[in-house]
């Protein structure tokens, strides 16, 4: 004989349906807790990442871009687009009271490219003044970008050393950026010289919506960090009051809509986790109670053969722990496959920035979910274990006759 431990395994194998139900239940509980909390965290990280990537207090775009919701869609939803305003606005805006750092950006959407099945957004920045993209690009590419060098977002099917063609212009992939969970993962970044060449080429090929644009004299967007002692709202109002045909937008305000959605989704997920957890705990409590009631006579026999009250309780607890370990391991595996394999789909469905935490953090969440599930199962079984440890052996054995 292989001992008391084997008795636990044999008891579980002896009732396969009951055991499978308990394992599935614990797996479902782990799956819900782990994927729910990972989704919540990924959404929070996504919005943090978006805020960090925007990196400016105020953004100024042509007024026409905001009336069509074009700009916010580009930033938040990842839709492509481009618009231009005169370069003179950069100088005019920098003179407004409270404006600190100023840098211009240039937008263009690709027509087609080998990297991507759909058009991608191309953003150009001025390395001399830029304070948003350069620090981020520097993490992946330590050198200064040469003309015709680009860095690509993490989700694009292009790698360092590849050559891409935009409007017939060959560009080289100098670096691939780290994942942000935002629309920037499908964006191509380059310096202002390169993007001006691309805009020029698109105009020559008559593939640009704008026909009379001089690439050397336009910008798409002006990013601003307010000067010390000023707040972004005040500066935004100043710009909107004093500069015609442009719209200044506080980035915080732009993100607030996303943050509100995130808060709603996060609350729903939290309620769902709580509801499934309570339901799971109740079902496990019932399952263990039924299982122990059904096997009262077997426990009485074990008591007759010399099992102490503690031993009977430990048998129930060991069964709960074993099903908990197997179920939570299976649940964790499924949860990680779902989250890693379908993260993109979840992001698309929710329509919110979504950035999975690091592997270490995911492992931490998985461990916490496993512990929570096992503890829940053990707590549910503890009630039955206590009850079975108090059985009246004589009464149970006589009840049969």
């Amino acid at each position, binding site marked *: *004989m*292989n*001992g*008391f*431990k*084997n*008795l636990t395994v*044999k*008891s579980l*194998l*002896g*009732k396969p349906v009951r055991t499978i139900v308990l394992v599935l239940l614990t797996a479902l509980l782990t799956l819900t807790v782990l994927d729910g909390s990972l989704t919540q965290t990924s959404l929070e990280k996504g919005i943090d990442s978006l805020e960090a990537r925007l990196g400016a207090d105020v953004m100024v775009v042509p007024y026409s871009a905001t009336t069509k919701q074009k700009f916010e869609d580009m930033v938040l939803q990842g839709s492509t687009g481009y618009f231009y305003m005169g370069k003179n606005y950069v100088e005019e805006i920098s003179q407004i009271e409270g404006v600190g750092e100023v840098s211009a950006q240039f937008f263009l959407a690709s027509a087609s490219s080998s990297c991507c099945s759909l058009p991608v957004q191309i953003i150009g920045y001025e390395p001399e003044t830029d304070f948003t993209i350069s620090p981020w690009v520097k993490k992946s590419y330590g050198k200064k970008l040469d003309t015709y060098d680009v860095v690509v977002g993490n989700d694009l099917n292009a790698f360092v050393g590849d050559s891409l063609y935009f409007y017939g212009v060959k560009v080289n992939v100098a670096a691939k950026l780290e994942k942000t969970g935002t629309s920037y993962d499908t964006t191509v970044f380059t310096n202002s010289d390169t993007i001006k060449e691309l805009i020029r080429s698109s105009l020559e090929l008559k593939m640009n919506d704008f026909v009379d644009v001089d690439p050397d004299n336009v910008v798409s967007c002006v990013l601003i960090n307010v000067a010390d002692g000023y707040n972004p709202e005040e500066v935004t109002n100043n710009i909107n009051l004093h500069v015609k045909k442009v719209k200044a937008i506080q980035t915080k305000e732009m993100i607030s809509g996303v943050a509100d959605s995130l808060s709603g989704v996060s609350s729903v997920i939290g309620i769902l986790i709580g509801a499934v957890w309570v339901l799971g705990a109740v079902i496990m409590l019932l399952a263990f109670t039924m299982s122990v009631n059904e096997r009262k*006579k*077997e426990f*009485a*026999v*074990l*008591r*007759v*053969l*010399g*099992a*102490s*009250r*503690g*031993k009977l309780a430990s048998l129930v607890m060991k069964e709960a722990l074993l099903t908990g370990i197997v179920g939570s391991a299976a649940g964790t595996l499924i949860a990680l496959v779902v989250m890693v394999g379908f993260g993109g789909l979840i992001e698309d469905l929710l329509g919110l920035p979504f950035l999975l935490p690091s592997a270490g953090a995911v492992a931490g969440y998985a461990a916490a979910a496993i512990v929570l599930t096992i503890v829940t199962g053990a707590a549910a079984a503890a009630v039955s274990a206590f009850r079975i440890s108090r059985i*009246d*052996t*004589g009464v149970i*054995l*006589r009840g*049969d*006759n």
Partner: protein
Amino acid sequence: MPLSAESLTKQFIRESKNANCFSAVDDVSLRLEEGTVTVLTGRSGGGKTTVLNMMSGLLAPTKGRVLLDDSDIYSLADKELSRLRNRRFGVIPQGQTAIHSLNVMQNIMLPYTLYNERADEDTLKRAEELLERLDIAGLSASKPAELSGGELRRMAIARAVIKKPDFIFADEPTGDLDDENTKTVFEFLRSAADEGAAVLIVTHEECAAAYADRVMKMASGKIV
């Protein structure tokens, strides 16, 4: 060393009756000597099984003591009393008492399994012999669901005696057996006593007296 019951009384709460407390056993004294078979008979509800349960360490008396080696077994902590039951007592309960997830041999070896005791070759040989003597040798790998009532009862007897207990408690061991199986079981319990065990049999079978050293009758909780 004998097992002595001194003035055992057991009272139960029965709320459905007007008197909410009744005595199932009232001031019973009994001594089980090694090498003897004691048969306890009497009508149903007379208190026989309650006496057996109290003497086998399964039911604490309301009053009185069960003495083994000069100490009351109910003064022991549950863990110690359970271990004592496992080492020195062999109990054959009423009815079918197989663990259905285990096969016959695994059921018989349960007293060892419970305390992670490794069964040596002699023990395994003894288990095989018990199966032979009880005429269930070919069933060691069978599951309880495949066995008849008589075979299950004989399996329970083998399980109770596998550790060569000093005291064997058999509660209606032939309750659902035919005459032939009844004879086999009583002969087996008699031989266990002949090998040195003290055996207490609670039964309605009149033929049990033929195998006993002492027959006692119980009625209304008292030995009469």
